[in-house]
């Protein structure tokens, strides 16, 4: 397309696109470059200490095993949350897209999107109220279950996973729903007329045809979950130390911005590496 524009049109297009590029520069590249700059300093540039350039912040990651272990813990958390979101969200999207029609669909859709509209802190503290000892969940179970119920979910990795799954579930539901919606009902009807049962149709047609949406949702979940810190901190208690919380500490508690920045860029690199390594597999799945 760009090749077919003449000079005048090119200038106009550039003019029209300028605000977008400006916004991108201000909102994405400036903060990122500032952080990249910080990550090579010995101290934040606005303190009293003298500032020099160094690679020490990056080496710090490799000096102890702690950061690596925490990163692996966070990656595992990301895999768990992404996996659970897919297991719960994809069937929901399937039912929403292919079984339910009309009004009921709109109502359910609203329920799916509702978590998006509430403040994430409110959401997380609500879970704390539900999950804590003698909290809403245990009392409710007490009513229906004979004997004393002690789930002890609060301040466990399970609580972190529950909170994160709840926050990120809408992504996979929405992206899968859009992909499933695009599958023509006649395709499923044609498969049925050829004698295919539900499982065959799911495995050979519906899943491959909606895989792009499912994977988009998975990436949208995995990336932020690996770096998450709020849910681990509030719901995880003494199990709540993750890579994200350590990075956050560098910024808000220890005021070691350069180390925080370096750790963030290592996280970014690792996440990009994971996505790059898995993309051939994903692309094959999309064929």
């Amino acid at each position, binding site marked *: 397309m760009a090749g077919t524009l003449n000079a005048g049109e090119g200038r106009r297009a550039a003019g029209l696109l300028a605000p977008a590029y400006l916004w991108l520069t201000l909102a994405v590249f400036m903060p990122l470059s500032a952080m990249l700059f910080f990550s090579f300093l010995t101290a934040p540039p606005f303190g009293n200490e003298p500032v020099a350039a160094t690679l020490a912040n990056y080496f710090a990651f490799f000096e102890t095993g702690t950061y690596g272990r925490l990163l692996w813990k966070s990656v595992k958390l990301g895999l768990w949350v992404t996996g659970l979101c897919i297991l719960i969200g994809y069937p929901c999207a399937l039912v929403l897209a292919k079984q339910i029609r009309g009004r009921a669909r709109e109502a359910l859709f609203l329920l799916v999107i509702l978590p998006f509209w509430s403040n994430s802190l409110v959401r997380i503290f609500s879970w704390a109220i539900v999950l804590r000892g003698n909290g809403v969940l245990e009392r409710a179970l007490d009513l229906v279950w004979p004997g004393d119920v002690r789930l002890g979910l609060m301040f466990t990795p399970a609580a972190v996973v529950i909170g994160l799954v709840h926050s990120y579930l809408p992504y996979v539901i929405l992206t899968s729903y859009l992909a499933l919606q695009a599958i*023509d009902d*006649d*395709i499923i*009807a*044609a*498969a*049925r*007329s*050829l*004698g*295919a*049962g539900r499982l*065959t149709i799911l495995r*050979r*047609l519906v899943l*491959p*045809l909606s895989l792009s949406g499912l994977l988009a949702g998975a990436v949208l979940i995995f990336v932020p979950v690996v770096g998450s810190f709020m849910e681990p901190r509030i719901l995880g208690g003494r199990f709540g130390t993750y890579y994200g919380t350590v990075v956050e500490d560098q910024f808000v508690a220890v005021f070691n911005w350069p180390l925080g920045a370096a750790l963030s860029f290592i996280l970014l690199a690792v996440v990009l590496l994971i996505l790059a390594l898995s993309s051939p597999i994903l692309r094959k799945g999309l*064929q």
Partner: protein
Amino acid sequence: MAEVSVRGVTMRFGELKALDDVTLDFVDGGFFALLGPSGSGKTTLLRVIAGFLFPDEGEVRIAGQPVERVPVEKREIGMMFQNYALFPNLTVAENVGFGLRVRHVDRAEERRRVGEVLELVQLEGLGRRRPKELSGGQRQRVALARAIVTNPKVLLLDEPLSALDKALRVDMQIELKRIQREVGITTIFVTHDQEEALTLADRIGILRDGRLVQAGPPREVYNAPVDSFAARFLGEANLLPSPLPDTFAEGARLALPEGAAAYAVRPEALTLTPTPPEDDVNALPGRLVQRVFAGSMATCVVDIGGGGTWKVIDRDPDLPQLPEGAAVWLSWDAEDTIPIGAA
């Protein structure tokens, strides 16, 4: 291959009766065209026969077996959809082989039969392509191949040619007829195009508002329509009410048989002349409203005083050019009067 029969089938969608007490027989190996305007229930009837819908009342039999509660997966039918509904993630060969894979036919046998049927629809060598790499006509053939490869008992087609352009459609009609003859499969074909129905079918049925108006061989329905709807739906027809109103075409010379509710005259049975005809035939005076040439013939519209406008197909376009608005006579032989219904 099998005969199909539908007895007293009623299908409701809420208040609406999409099918109302439809009884029809489809003979083994026959090519049946279901005709009707949009919304008349053609697709619904096809879906009841296929098993996508279970009728509220009535019976559906395939090869003598009652199947009205058997789901589509178990009915052994082949179906072709209006937009082809090919599986976009599979190759042509995988599309065609889908039904065989579902039936656990072994791979070598699958390859052999897919190859055979691709040859039948003249697509040999395209097995590795994906649907989006095919033209409309080729997709059409893949859909047909996929529907017949499992040797279904009946082939159901829902307006399969309506997405093609005119020239390709005529080619595909001939092709479809050839393949149907070759395979000998009982075929039920939905269309709203009467010409298509006449080209393809050995029997037709006309639906209107969920009711079967008439069924039979095309000639029979054409020559003896049971009512004015059937007369007008299959081919065009000029209608004469019975009894004729007093104001009807002053000066008309008509000898109509007794005891019919109405009469129809086909446009091609009419002769257009500038003067009253001499022979002892039916004749109506009128005024020429329009005359359109289409190659070997002209289509004329004639205003009959008190009787609306009539359509005439004039196969003698050498006739002296009559100006629009000229006084003309329409005449036809007595045997071309089609009595409709009983009075």
